[in-house]
Protein backbone atom coordinates (compact mmCIF):
# COMPACT_ATOMS: atom_id res chain seq x y z
CA UNK A 1 0.00 0.00 0.00
CA UNK A 2 1.56 3.33 -1.03
CA UNK A 3 1.91 6.11 1.50
CA UNK A 4 -1.09 8.46 1.48
CA UNK A 5 -0.49 12.06 2.54
CA UNK A 6 -3.22 14.28 3.89
CA UNK A 7 -3.28 18.04 3.23
CA UNK A 8 -5.72 20.45 4.83
CA UNK A 9 -7.52 22.91 2.59
CA UNK A 10 -8.91 25.54 4.99
CA UNK A 11 -12.47 26.47 4.16
CA UNK A 12 -12.69 23.77 1.50
CA UNK A 13 -11.96 20.39 3.03
CA UNK A 14 -9.05 18.02 2.77
CA UNK A 15 -6.91 16.43 0.06
CA UNK A 16 -5.31 12.99 0.03
CA UNK A 17 -2.52 12.12 -2.37
CA UNK A 18 -0.42 9.14 -3.28
CA UNK A 19 1.83 7.92 -6.07
CA UNK A 20 0.68 5.00 -8.19
CA UNK A 21 2.90 2.07 -9.12
CA UNK A 22 3.39 3.75 -12.52
CA UNK A 23 4.68 6.89 -10.86
CA UNK A 24 1.56 8.99 -11.43
CA UNK A 25 0.69 11.31 -8.57
CA UNK A 26 -3.02 11.08 -7.82
CA UNK A 27 -5.08 13.11 -5.36
CA UNK A 28 -8.62 13.15 -4.04
CA UNK A 29 -10.05 16.51 -2.91
CA UNK A 30 -12.87 15.96 -0.42
CA UNK A 31 -15.07 19.03 -0.09
CA UNK A 32 -16.93 19.62 3.15
CA UNK A 33 -20.10 19.62 1.06
CA UNK A 34 -19.54 15.98 0.12
CA UNK A 35 -18.32 16.72 -3.40
CA UNK A 36 -15.12 15.01 -4.49
CA UNK A 37 -12.51 15.78 -7.10
CA UNK A 38 -10.06 13.25 -8.45
CA UNK A 39 -6.94 14.94 -9.72
CA UNK A 40 -3.94 13.66 -11.63
CA UNK A 41 -0.79 15.73 -11.38
CA UNK A 42 1.11 17.11 -14.32
CA UNK A 43 4.46 15.45 -14.99
CA UNK A 44 6.15 18.61 -16.22
CA UNK A 45 4.84 20.89 -13.47
CA UNK A 46 4.17 18.62 -10.50
CA UNK A 47 2.53 21.49 -8.63
CA UNK A 48 -0.48 21.55 -10.90
CA UNK A 49 -3.04 19.06 -12.03
CA UNK A 50 -3.29 17.62 -15.51
CA UNK A 51 -6.87 16.51 -15.26
CA UNK A 52 -9.67 16.86 -12.78
CA UNK A 53 -12.78 14.75 -12.40
CA UNK A 54 -15.67 16.31 -10.47
CA UNK A 55 -17.91 13.92 -8.57
CA UNK A 56 -21.17 14.50 -6.74
CA UNK A 57 -21.75 12.34 -3.64
CA UNK A 58 -23.75 9.95 -5.84
CA UNK A 59 -21.02 9.81 -8.47
CA UNK A 60 -18.53 9.02 -5.74
CA UNK A 61 -20.56 6.04 -4.54
CA UNK A 62 -20.91 4.73 -8.08
CA UNK A 63 -17.22 5.05 -8.76
CA UNK A 64 -16.24 3.46 -5.46
CA UNK A 65 -18.49 0.54 -6.33
CA UNK A 66 -17.03 0.16 -9.80
CA UNK A 67 -13.59 0.22 -8.29
CA UNK A 68 -14.31 -2.91 -6.31
CA UNK A 69 -16.76 -2.45 -3.52
CA UNK A 70 -19.33 -5.28 -3.50
CA UNK A 71 -21.46 -4.67 -6.53
CA UNK A 72 -23.83 -7.53 -5.99
CA UNK A 73 -25.00 -6.70 -2.48
CA UNK A 74 -25.83 -3.13 -3.48
CA UNK A 75 -27.88 -4.36 -6.47
CA UNK A 76 -29.75 -6.84 -4.30
CA UNK A 77 -30.44 -4.27 -1.61
CA UNK A 78 -31.94 -1.86 -4.11
CA UNK A 79 -34.07 -4.59 -5.72
CA UNK A 80 -35.47 -5.73 -2.39
CA UNK A 81 -36.78 -2.24 -1.72
CA UNK A 82 -38.93 -2.32 -4.84
CA UNK A 83 -42.49 -3.57 -4.84
CA UNK A 84 -43.65 -6.11 -7.42
CA UNK A 85 -40.12 -7.41 -7.87
CA UNK A 86 -38.83 -10.58 -6.36
CA UNK A 87 -35.50 -12.26 -6.22
CA UNK A 88 -34.67 -15.95 -6.19
CA UNK A 89 -31.72 -18.27 -5.94
CA UNK A 90 -32.07 -21.12 -8.39
CA UNK A 91 -29.64 -24.05 -8.37
CA UNK A 92 -28.86 -25.61 -11.74
CA UNK A 93 -29.27 -29.33 -10.95
CA UNK A 94 -27.04 -32.15 -12.24
CA UNK A 95 -29.63 -33.31 -14.77
CA UNK A 96 -30.73 -29.89 -16.07
CA UNK A 97 -30.71 -29.52 -19.82
CA UNK A 98 -28.92 -26.19 -19.40
CA UNK A 99 -25.76 -27.66 -17.92
CA UNK A 100 -23.13 -26.81 -20.53
CA UNK A 101 -25.23 -24.24 -22.34
CA UNK A 102 -24.96 -20.49 -22.00
CA UNK A 103 -27.36 -17.94 -20.55
CA UNK A 104 -27.84 -16.62 -24.08
CA UNK A 105 -28.80 -20.11 -25.34
CA UNK A 106 -31.48 -20.44 -22.68
CA UNK A 107 -33.24 -17.20 -23.73
CA UNK A 108 -34.43 -16.98 -20.14
CA UNK A 109 -35.38 -13.33 -20.17
CA UNK A 110 -37.50 -13.51 -23.30
CA UNK A 111 -39.21 -16.68 -22.07
CA UNK A 112 -39.89 -15.70 -18.46
CA UNK A 113 -39.23 -11.98 -18.10
CA UNK A 114 -36.81 -12.70 -15.26
CA UNK A 115 -33.15 -11.66 -15.49
CA UNK A 116 -30.18 -13.53 -14.16
CA UNK A 117 -28.18 -10.81 -12.41
CA UNK A 118 -25.50 -13.00 -10.87
CA UNK A 119 -24.24 -16.52 -10.67
CA UNK A 120 -22.71 -18.06 -7.58
CA UNK A 121 -20.26 -20.84 -8.36
CA UNK A 122 -18.71 -22.68 -5.43
CA UNK A 123 -19.47 -19.77 -3.11
CA UNK A 124 -17.82 -17.24 -5.45
CA UNK A 125 -20.26 -14.66 -6.78
CA UNK A 126 -19.94 -13.67 -10.44
CA UNK A 127 -21.91 -10.41 -10.71
CA UNK A 128 -23.55 -9.43 -14.01
CA UNK A 129 -22.79 -12.59 -16.01
CA UNK A 130 -22.82 -12.03 -19.79
CA UNK A 131 -24.97 -14.02 -22.26
CA UNK A 132 -21.94 -16.19 -22.96
CA UNK A 133 -21.75 -17.46 -19.38
CA UNK A 134 -21.81 -21.26 -19.52
CA UNK A 135 -23.62 -23.08 -16.70
CA UNK A 136 -22.07 -25.88 -14.74
CA UNK A 137 -24.04 -28.26 -12.55
CA UNK A 138 -24.33 -26.78 -9.05
CA UNK A 139 -24.24 -23.13 -10.24
CA UNK A 140 -26.70 -20.92 -8.38
CA UNK A 141 -28.41 -18.38 -10.63
CA UNK A 142 -29.51 -15.22 -8.83
CA UNK A 143 -32.54 -13.96 -10.75
CA UNK A 144 -34.75 -10.90 -10.49
CA UNK A 145 -38.27 -10.64 -11.91
CA UNK A 146 -41.92 -10.97 -11.04
CA UNK A 147 -42.95 -13.83 -8.77
CA UNK A 148 -44.58 -15.49 -11.76
CA UNK A 149 -41.54 -15.11 -14.00
CA UNK A 150 -39.30 -16.57 -11.34
CA UNK A 151 -41.54 -19.61 -10.93
CA UNK A 152 -41.39 -20.21 -14.68
CA UNK A 153 -37.62 -19.79 -14.66
CA UNK A 154 -37.26 -22.30 -11.82
CA UNK A 155 -39.37 -24.86 -13.69
CA UNK A 156 -37.38 -24.25 -16.86
CA UNK A 157 -34.00 -24.72 -15.21
CA UNK A 158 -35.15 -27.68 -13.09
CA UNK A 159 -36.09 -29.75 -16.13
Amino acid at each position, binding site marked *: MPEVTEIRLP*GVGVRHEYTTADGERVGVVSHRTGRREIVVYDR*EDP*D*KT*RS*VLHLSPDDTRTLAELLGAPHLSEALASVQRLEGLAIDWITVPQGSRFVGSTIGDGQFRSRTGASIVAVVRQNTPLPSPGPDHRFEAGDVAVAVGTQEGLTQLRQLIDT
Partner: protein
Amino acid sequence: MILAAAGEDAALVFIEIGAVALGLAVLARFAGRLGITAIPFYLLAGLAVGEGGIAPLDVSAEFISLSAEIGVLLLLLVLGLEYTADELRHGLRGGLVPGGVDAAVNFTPGLGAGLLLGWDLTTAVLLGGVCWISSSGVVAKVLSDLDRLGNRETPAVLNVLVIEDLAMAAYLPVVAALVAGRDLADTAATVSIALAAVALVLVVALRWGERLSALLAGGSDEALLLAVFGLTLLVGGLAQEVQVSAAIGAFLVGLALSGPVQARAGALVEPLRDLFAATFFLFFSFQIDPGDLPAVVLPAAALAVVTGAGKLVSGHAAARPLGVGPRGRLRAGTALIARGEFSIVIASLGAGTDHGDELGALAAAYVLLTAVAGPVVAKYADRLPLPGAHAPAPSPAASSDGRGLS
Protein backbone atom coordinates in the same frame (compact mmCIF):
# COMPACT_ATOMS: atom_id res chain seq x y z
CA MET B 1 -53.00 49.16 10.40
CA ILE B 2 -49.40 50.04 9.81
CA LEU B 3 -49.62 49.05 6.20
CA ALA B 4 -52.87 50.90 5.69
CA ALA B 5 -51.45 54.12 7.12
CA ALA B 6 -48.35 53.89 5.00
CA GLY B 7 -50.16 52.33 2.06
CA GLU B 8 -48.98 54.63 -0.64
CA ASP B 9 -45.42 54.80 0.65
CA ALA B 10 -45.28 51.04 1.09
CA ALA B 11 -46.43 50.52 -2.47
CA LEU B 12 -43.69 52.81 -3.75
CA VAL B 13 -41.06 51.14 -1.55
CA PHE B 14 -42.08 47.70 -2.78
CA ILE B 15 -41.92 48.81 -6.39
CA GLU B 16 -38.52 50.41 -5.98
CA ILE B 17 -36.99 47.55 -4.00
CA GLY B 18 -38.53 44.97 -6.30
CA ALA B 19 -37.13 46.68 -9.36
CA VAL B 20 -33.70 47.01 -7.76
CA ALA B 21 -33.64 43.35 -6.67
CA LEU B 22 -34.64 42.22 -10.16
CA GLY B 23 -31.95 44.42 -11.63
CA LEU B 24 -29.39 42.85 -9.30
CA ALA B 25 -30.60 39.39 -10.28
CA VAL B 26 -29.95 40.18 -13.94
CA LEU B 27 -26.48 41.48 -13.05
CA ALA B 28 -25.71 38.38 -10.95
CA ARG B 29 -26.64 36.15 -13.88
CA PHE B 30 -24.56 38.22 -16.26
CA ALA B 31 -21.58 38.02 -13.90
CA GLY B 32 -22.09 34.28 -13.57
CA ARG B 33 -22.05 33.94 -17.34
CA LEU B 34 -18.77 35.87 -17.51
CA GLY B 35 -17.43 33.74 -14.70
CA ILE B 36 -16.61 36.65 -12.38
CA THR B 37 -18.00 37.88 -9.08
CA ALA B 38 -21.10 40.07 -9.16
CA ILE B 39 -19.67 42.61 -6.70
CA PRO B 40 -18.33 45.02 -9.37
CA PHE B 41 -21.73 45.01 -11.06
CA TYR B 42 -23.53 45.69 -7.80
CA LEU B 43 -21.21 48.63 -7.25
CA LEU B 44 -21.93 50.00 -10.72
CA ALA B 45 -25.67 49.54 -10.14
CA GLY B 46 -25.35 51.49 -6.89
CA LEU B 47 -23.75 54.37 -8.77
CA ALA B 48 -26.62 54.36 -11.23
CA VAL B 49 -29.37 54.58 -8.61
CA GLY B 50 -27.51 56.84 -6.16
CA GLU B 51 -27.40 60.59 -5.87
CA GLY B 52 -26.42 62.10 -9.18
CA GLY B 53 -26.97 58.77 -10.92
CA ILE B 54 -29.27 58.04 -13.83
CA ALA B 55 -32.24 56.69 -11.86
CA PRO B 56 -32.03 57.92 -8.25
CA LEU B 57 -34.10 56.15 -5.59
CA ASP B 58 -35.40 58.18 -2.70
CA VAL B 59 -38.32 56.49 -0.94
CA SER B 60 -36.57 53.24 -0.13
CA ALA B 61 -33.16 54.66 0.77
CA GLU B 62 -33.82 54.18 4.48
CA PHE B 63 -34.77 50.54 4.09
CA ILE B 64 -31.80 49.87 1.85
CA SER B 65 -29.49 51.54 4.33
CA LEU B 66 -30.67 49.28 7.17
CA SER B 67 -30.43 46.17 4.97
CA ALA B 68 -26.92 47.24 4.06
CA GLU B 69 -25.95 47.37 7.75
CA ILE B 70 -27.33 43.87 8.25
CA GLY B 71 -25.47 42.83 5.10
CA VAL B 72 -22.13 43.81 6.66
CA LEU B 73 -22.91 41.81 9.79
CA LEU B 74 -23.85 38.74 7.78
CA LEU B 75 -20.78 39.06 5.54
CA LEU B 76 -18.56 39.00 8.60
CA LEU B 77 -20.56 36.29 10.33
CA VAL B 78 -20.06 34.02 7.33
CA LEU B 79 -16.39 34.95 7.16
CA GLY B 80 -16.06 33.89 10.79
CA LEU B 81 -17.93 30.67 10.06
CA GLU B 82 -15.73 29.83 7.11
CA TYR B 83 -12.86 28.20 8.97
CA THR B 84 -12.91 25.65 11.74
CA ALA B 85 -11.07 26.34 14.99
CA ASP B 86 -8.60 23.67 13.93
CA GLU B 87 -7.88 25.41 10.64
CA LEU B 88 -7.37 28.71 12.44
CA ARG B 89 -4.90 27.14 14.87
CA HIS B 90 -2.97 25.53 12.03
CA GLY B 91 -3.04 28.73 10.00
CA LEU B 92 -1.60 30.64 12.93
CA ARG B 93 1.19 28.15 13.41
CA GLY B 94 2.46 28.03 9.85
CA GLY B 95 1.23 31.26 8.37
CA LEU B 96 2.71 34.05 10.47
CA VAL B 97 5.70 34.74 8.20
CA PRO B 98 3.76 34.71 4.88
CA GLY B 99 0.99 36.64 6.61
CA GLY B 100 3.49 39.28 7.74
CA VAL B 101 4.92 39.57 4.21
CA ASP B 102 1.39 39.82 2.82
CA ALA B 103 0.54 42.66 5.21
CA ALA B 104 3.81 44.50 4.57
CA VAL B 105 3.66 44.49 0.78
CA ASN B 106 -0.06 45.20 0.42
CA PHE B 107 -1.03 47.33 3.41
CA THR B 108 1.94 49.69 3.09
CA PRO B 109 1.25 50.92 -0.48
CA GLY B 110 -2.33 51.76 0.48
CA LEU B 111 -1.24 53.58 3.60
CA GLY B 112 1.40 55.50 1.62
CA ALA B 113 -1.06 56.39 -1.13
CA GLY B 114 -3.50 57.74 1.45
CA LEU B 115 -0.84 59.94 2.99
CA LEU B 116 0.38 61.09 -0.45
CA LEU B 117 -3.17 62.13 -1.29
CA GLY B 118 -3.04 64.36 1.76
CA TRP B 119 -5.49 62.35 3.84
CA ASP B 120 -5.44 62.06 7.62
CA LEU B 121 -3.73 59.04 9.16
CA THR B 122 -6.98 57.23 10.02
CA THR B 123 -8.30 57.34 6.46
CA ALA B 124 -4.88 56.32 5.13
CA VAL B 125 -4.86 53.31 7.48
CA LEU B 126 -8.28 52.39 6.13
CA LEU B 127 -6.99 52.60 2.56
CA GLY B 128 -4.13 50.33 3.61
CA GLY B 129 -6.71 47.81 4.78
CA VAL B 130 -8.68 48.13 1.55
CA CYS B 131 -5.54 47.16 -0.40
CA TRP B 132 -4.45 44.46 2.02
CA ILE B 133 -7.26 41.93 2.28
CA SER B 134 -7.94 39.61 -0.66
CA SER B 135 -11.52 38.63 -1.27
CA SER B 136 -11.83 35.15 0.19
CA GLY B 137 -15.08 34.67 -1.70
CA VAL B 138 -13.57 35.52 -5.08
CA VAL B 139 -10.30 33.67 -4.44
CA ALA B 140 -12.06 30.47 -3.38
CA LYS B 141 -14.29 30.69 -6.46
CA VAL B 142 -11.33 31.30 -8.78
CA LEU B 143 -9.45 28.29 -7.40
CA SER B 144 -12.47 26.08 -7.79
CA ASP B 145 -13.46 27.38 -11.24
CA LEU B 146 -9.93 26.96 -12.58
CA ASP B 147 -9.70 23.45 -11.10
CA ARG B 148 -6.79 24.39 -8.91
CA LEU B 149 -7.95 22.85 -5.64
CA GLY B 150 -5.66 19.92 -6.25
CA ASN B 151 -2.65 22.11 -6.93
CA ARG B 152 0.32 22.08 -4.60
CA GLU B 153 0.21 25.86 -4.10
CA THR B 154 -3.47 25.92 -3.15
CA PRO B 155 -3.08 25.23 0.59
CA ALA B 156 -0.67 28.19 0.67
CA VAL B 157 -3.24 30.46 -0.96
CA LEU B 158 -5.95 29.32 1.44
CA ASN B 159 -3.63 29.81 4.39
CA VAL B 160 -3.03 33.42 3.39
CA LEU B 161 -6.80 33.87 3.45
CA VAL B 162 -6.97 32.34 6.94
CA ILE B 163 -4.28 34.65 8.23
CA GLU B 164 -5.94 37.70 6.66
CA ASP B 165 -9.13 36.54 8.31
CA LEU B 166 -7.46 36.48 11.71
CA ALA B 167 -5.70 39.77 11.02
CA MET B 168 -9.08 41.35 10.34
CA ALA B 169 -10.10 40.35 13.86
CA ALA B 170 -7.43 42.69 15.22
CA TYR B 171 -7.47 45.30 12.45
CA LEU B 172 -11.20 46.04 12.34
CA PRO B 173 -11.64 46.99 16.01
CA VAL B 174 -8.48 49.10 15.89
CA VAL B 175 -9.64 51.14 12.92
CA ALA B 176 -13.15 51.33 14.28
CA ALA B 177 -11.66 52.85 17.44
CA LEU B 178 -9.45 55.19 15.39
CA VAL B 179 -12.48 56.42 13.48
CA ALA B 180 -14.58 56.89 16.60
CA GLY B 181 -11.79 58.21 18.85
CA ARG B 182 -12.00 61.84 19.90
CA ASP B 183 -8.61 62.13 21.55
CA LEU B 184 -5.58 59.97 22.07
CA ALA B 185 -6.50 58.62 25.52
CA ASP B 186 -10.03 57.85 24.42
CA THR B 187 -8.81 56.04 21.32
CA ALA B 188 -6.24 54.09 23.28
CA ALA B 189 -8.91 52.99 25.76
CA THR B 190 -11.30 51.89 23.01
CA VAL B 191 -8.56 50.02 21.18
CA SER B 192 -7.57 48.15 24.33
CA ILE B 193 -11.17 47.22 25.14
CA ALA B 194 -11.69 46.05 21.58
CA LEU B 195 -8.51 44.01 21.41
CA ALA B 196 -9.16 42.48 24.82
CA ALA B 197 -12.67 41.50 23.75
CA VAL B 198 -11.37 40.00 20.51
CA ALA B 199 -8.62 38.09 22.30
CA LEU B 200 -11.09 36.79 24.86
CA VAL B 201 -13.54 35.60 22.24
CA LEU B 202 -10.75 34.03 20.18
CA VAL B 203 -9.49 32.07 23.17
CA VAL B 204 -13.01 31.03 24.11
CA ALA B 205 -13.78 30.07 20.51
CA LEU B 206 -10.61 28.03 20.06
CA ARG B 207 -10.87 26.30 23.44
CA TRP B 208 -14.53 25.95 24.25
CA GLY B 209 -16.22 26.65 20.92
CA GLU B 210 -17.54 23.11 20.78
CA ARG B 211 -19.30 23.38 24.12
CA LEU B 212 -20.83 26.73 23.16
CA SER B 213 -22.03 25.29 19.87
CA ALA B 214 -23.57 22.30 21.61
CA LEU B 215 -25.92 24.72 23.34
CA LEU B 216 -27.27 25.82 19.96
CA ALA B 217 -27.20 22.42 18.31
CA GLY B 218 -30.65 21.19 19.37
CA GLY B 219 -33.81 22.02 17.50
CA SER B 220 -34.85 22.61 13.95
CA ASP B 221 -33.04 24.53 11.22
CA GLU B 222 -35.55 27.30 11.73
CA ALA B 223 -34.62 27.63 15.40
CA LEU B 224 -30.92 27.59 14.58
CA LEU B 225 -31.30 30.24 11.87
CA LEU B 226 -33.18 32.54 14.23
CA ALA B 227 -30.72 31.89 17.05
CA VAL B 228 -27.67 32.64 14.91
CA PHE B 229 -29.27 35.66 13.27
CA GLY B 230 -30.40 36.99 16.64
CA LEU B 231 -27.07 36.36 18.30
CA THR B 232 -25.25 38.09 15.46
CA LEU B 233 -27.38 41.23 15.62
CA LEU B 234 -27.34 41.26 19.41
CA VAL B 235 -23.58 40.86 19.76
CA GLY B 236 -23.06 43.29 16.86
CA GLY B 237 -25.24 45.86 18.55
CA LEU B 238 -23.53 45.41 21.92
CA ALA B 239 -20.12 45.74 20.26
CA GLN B 240 -21.27 48.95 18.59
CA GLU B 241 -22.42 50.26 22.00
CA VAL B 242 -18.89 49.97 23.39
CA GLN B 243 -17.42 51.56 20.25
CA VAL B 244 -16.10 48.25 18.89
CA SER B 245 -17.59 48.01 15.42
CA ALA B 246 -20.74 45.90 15.05
CA ALA B 247 -19.04 44.06 12.20
CA ILE B 248 -16.37 42.66 14.49
CA GLY B 249 -19.05 41.44 16.89
CA ALA B 250 -20.67 39.49 14.09
CA PHE B 251 -17.31 38.13 13.02
CA LEU B 252 -16.60 36.88 16.53
CA VAL B 253 -19.96 35.11 16.67
CA GLY B 254 -18.94 33.28 13.51
CA LEU B 255 -15.57 32.35 14.97
CA ALA B 256 -17.12 31.10 18.21
CA LEU B 257 -19.42 28.62 16.47
CA SER B 258 -17.80 25.32 15.61
CA GLY B 259 -18.44 21.72 14.74
CA PRO B 260 -21.69 20.57 13.10
CA VAL B 261 -23.47 23.77 14.17
CA GLN B 262 -20.90 25.78 12.24
CA ALA B 263 -21.56 23.85 9.04
CA ARG B 264 -25.34 23.98 9.47
CA ALA B 265 -25.37 27.67 10.35
CA GLY B 266 -23.14 28.42 7.37
CA ALA B 267 -25.52 26.72 4.97
CA LEU B 268 -28.55 28.40 6.53
CA VAL B 269 -27.15 31.92 6.68
CA GLU B 270 -25.53 32.00 3.25
CA PRO B 271 -28.68 32.75 1.21
CA LEU B 272 -29.55 35.44 3.72
CA ARG B 273 -26.05 36.85 3.40
CA ASP B 274 -26.29 36.93 -0.39
CA LEU B 275 -29.50 38.92 -0.18
CA PHE B 276 -28.35 41.48 2.36
CA ALA B 277 -24.77 41.72 1.10
CA ALA B 278 -26.04 42.65 -2.35
CA THR B 279 -27.89 45.59 -0.82
CA PHE B 280 -24.72 46.47 1.09
CA PHE B 281 -22.65 46.76 -2.07
CA LEU B 282 -25.46 48.65 -3.74
CA PHE B 283 -25.80 51.05 -0.85
CA PHE B 284 -22.06 51.57 -0.60
CA SER B 285 -21.73 52.97 -4.10
CA PHE B 286 -25.19 54.51 -3.81
CA GLN B 287 -23.55 57.02 -1.47
CA ILE B 288 -20.68 57.76 -3.83
CA ASP B 289 -20.93 60.95 -5.80
CA PRO B 290 -20.10 59.97 -9.40
CA GLY B 291 -18.38 63.36 -9.62
CA ASP B 292 -15.70 62.03 -7.23
CA LEU B 293 -14.80 59.16 -9.53
CA PRO B 294 -12.65 60.74 -12.26
CA ALA B 295 -10.24 62.05 -9.65
CA VAL B 296 -9.68 58.61 -8.13
CA VAL B 297 -9.35 56.49 -11.27
CA LEU B 298 -5.64 57.11 -11.65
CA PRO B 299 -4.70 56.44 -8.01
CA ALA B 300 -6.93 53.35 -8.03
CA ALA B 301 -5.25 51.99 -11.15
CA ALA B 302 -1.78 52.71 -9.77
CA LEU B 303 -2.68 50.99 -6.49
CA ALA B 304 -4.14 48.04 -8.35
CA VAL B 305 -0.87 47.57 -10.23
CA VAL B 306 1.37 48.00 -7.18
CA THR B 307 -0.70 45.83 -4.85
CA GLY B 308 -1.35 43.32 -7.63
CA ALA B 309 2.42 42.88 -7.73
CA GLY B 310 2.28 42.84 -3.93
CA LYS B 311 0.03 39.79 -4.00
CA LEU B 312 2.53 38.06 -6.30
CA VAL B 313 5.06 38.55 -3.51
CA SER B 314 2.55 37.22 -0.96
CA GLY B 315 1.88 34.15 -3.07
CA HIS B 316 5.60 33.58 -3.52
CA ALA B 317 6.28 33.87 0.21
CA ALA B 318 3.39 31.57 1.10
CA ALA B 319 3.98 28.85 -1.49
CA ARG B 320 7.76 28.63 -1.25
CA PRO B 321 7.88 26.92 2.18
CA LEU B 322 5.64 24.18 0.76
CA GLY B 323 8.28 23.38 -1.85
CA VAL B 324 6.22 24.78 -4.71
CA GLY B 325 8.12 25.65 -7.89
CA PRO B 326 8.33 29.15 -9.46
CA ARG B 327 5.39 28.53 -11.79
CA GLY B 328 3.16 27.46 -8.91
CA ARG B 329 4.26 30.41 -6.77
CA LEU B 330 3.21 32.75 -9.56
CA ARG B 331 -0.16 31.01 -9.78
CA ALA B 332 -0.57 31.40 -6.01
CA GLY B 333 0.07 35.13 -6.26
CA THR B 334 -2.29 35.76 -9.15
CA ALA B 335 -5.08 33.88 -7.36
CA LEU B 336 -4.82 36.36 -4.50
CA ILE B 337 -5.10 39.57 -6.57
CA ALA B 338 -8.87 39.97 -6.37
CA ARG B 339 -10.15 42.26 -3.61
CA GLY B 340 -13.82 42.46 -2.87
CA GLU B 341 -16.25 42.38 0.01
CA PHE B 342 -13.81 43.15 2.82
CA SER B 343 -12.20 46.08 1.07
CA ILE B 344 -15.66 47.58 0.78
CA VAL B 345 -16.48 46.77 4.43
CA ILE B 346 -13.27 48.51 5.53
CA ALA B 347 -13.91 51.52 3.31
CA SER B 348 -17.45 51.81 4.66
CA LEU B 349 -16.05 52.20 8.19
CA GLY B 350 -14.50 55.48 7.04
CA ALA B 351 -17.76 56.94 5.80
CA GLY B 352 -17.77 59.57 8.55
CA THR B 353 -14.14 60.72 8.28
CA ASP B 354 -12.99 63.92 6.57
CA HIS B 355 -11.85 62.14 3.45
CA GLY B 356 -14.40 59.35 3.69
CA ASP B 357 -16.10 60.27 0.40
CA GLU B 358 -12.86 60.10 -1.54
CA LEU B 359 -11.93 56.86 0.23
CA GLY B 360 -15.28 55.36 -0.77
CA ALA B 361 -14.89 56.34 -4.41
CA LEU B 362 -11.29 55.16 -4.51
CA ALA B 363 -12.14 51.83 -2.86
CA ALA B 364 -15.01 51.25 -5.27
CA ALA B 365 -12.81 51.91 -8.31
CA TYR B 366 -10.02 49.79 -6.83
CA VAL B 367 -12.31 46.83 -6.11
CA LEU B 368 -13.84 47.14 -9.57
CA LEU B 369 -10.39 46.88 -11.15
CA THR B 370 -8.96 44.09 -9.02
CA ALA B 371 -12.09 41.96 -8.79
CA VAL B 372 -12.40 41.94 -12.58
CA ALA B 373 -8.70 41.78 -13.47
CA GLY B 374 -7.67 39.34 -10.70
CA PRO B 375 -9.53 36.26 -11.93
CA VAL B 376 -8.47 37.00 -15.53
CA VAL B 377 -4.80 37.25 -14.59
CA ALA B 378 -5.14 34.10 -12.48
CA LYS B 379 -6.64 32.25 -15.44
CA TYR B 380 -3.69 33.08 -17.69
CA ALA B 381 -1.04 32.78 -14.95
CA ASP B 382 0.67 29.92 -16.76
CA ARG B 383 1.31 32.14 -19.79
CA LEU B 384 2.88 34.99 -17.84
CA PRO B 385 6.64 35.29 -18.08
CA LEU B 386 8.28 34.03 -14.92
CA PRO B 387 9.98 36.86 -13.06
CA GLY B 388 13.69 36.19 -12.68
CA ALA B 389 13.58 32.75 -14.26
CA HIS B 390 16.11 31.77 -16.89
CA ALA B 391 15.01 28.19 -17.31
CA PRO B 392 12.59 27.79 -20.21
CA ALA B 393 9.05 27.68 -18.89
CA PRO B 394 7.10 24.53 -19.63
CA SER B 395 4.80 25.11 -22.54
CA PRO B 396 1.47 25.83 -20.91
CA ALA B 397 -0.53 24.94 -23.98
CA ALA B 398 0.90 21.46 -24.11
CA SER B 399 0.53 20.67 -20.45
CA SER B 400 -2.84 22.22 -19.71
CA ASP B 401 -4.70 20.62 -22.56
CA GLY B 402 -7.50 18.54 -21.20
CA ARG B 403 -6.17 15.11 -21.91
CA GLY B 404 -7.00 12.47 -19.37
CA LEU B 405 -10.00 12.04 -17.14
CA SER B 406 -12.12 15.06 -17.82
